[in-house]
């Protein structure tokens, strides 16, 4: 059957792609999408270890909490991006360099 390492390698690849997106993107919404990729790779690891290394469902409960926190993060971050767009008329992260609006 599928060994544990395969899941971990795919999760590592997804994490690296998300990291690449966070580092290269200029658009704030694209950066948020890349952060969601990183959340998903962490979740794959949690579920894989819950399946392979433990006998209970703790890892899956943790993954559920991660999904809930990701929903909070997406809502608040998009609210910040929308209010940033109202001030700057742009979502380019290079232009968002001042704390005061």
């Amino acid at each position, binding site marked *: *059957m*599928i060994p*544990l*390492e*395969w*899941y*971990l*390698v*795919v999760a*590592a690849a*997804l*994490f*690296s*792609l*998300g*990291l*690449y*997106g966070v*580092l*290269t*993107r*200029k*658009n704030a*919404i*694209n950066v*948020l*999408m*890349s952060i*969601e*990729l990183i959340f*998903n790779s962490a*979740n*794959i690891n949690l*579920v894989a270890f819950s*399946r*392979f*290394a*433990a006998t209970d*469902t*703790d890892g*899956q*409960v943790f*993954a*559920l*909490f991660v*999904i*809930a*926190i*990701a*929903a*909070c993060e*997406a*809502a*608040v971050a*998009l*609210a910040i991006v*929308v*209010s940033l*767009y*109202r001030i700057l008329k742009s979502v380019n992260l290079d232009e968002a360099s001042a704390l005061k609006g």
Partner: protein
Amino acid sequence: MDALAPKIFFLLFAVMMLGSALIVVHGRNLVHSGFALLATFFSVAAFYAMMGADFLAGAQVLIYVGGILTLLLFGVMLTNRIYDLNLRTGTFQVVPSTLVSGLVFATLVSIIYRTPWRQIPNVSAFDPGADEALSNTHAIGQALVTDYLLPFEVASVLLLIALMGAAMLVRRRSDL
């Protein structure tokens, strides 16, 4: 031969996940990135299902695809002038970022393959689907209202506060 089918499905969904993730991080069109993210989330849900986490697979589709992705697409539409139909975004620092993320990936893979997972207690060369024919939704529900009751309630209050804060943040100044 019955051991071959899960591997084929695994590789299929892994290619779909990583390919669409590549479109998300490298696509030129913001809307294309959003829809590629849909494919990534579905492939992750398929991975959960393959690992026997069927409740989590359902929650992934409901919350990520139904909630977070919709929110992100609304964000795309609210922060770009849709009528110019040119939702292009640029990339920068491509070479150093490729180096950094490639280095992180190589480090992670070398750690994964050097760790003797099989020697850790409880790690078994297991057989998916054979030992747990029943769904573990019941066990997750019980864990949420017994061992994880306090984190569960804290998470629900946090979600409420975050959504109220988000609604507060995007109000126009004249509404305050």
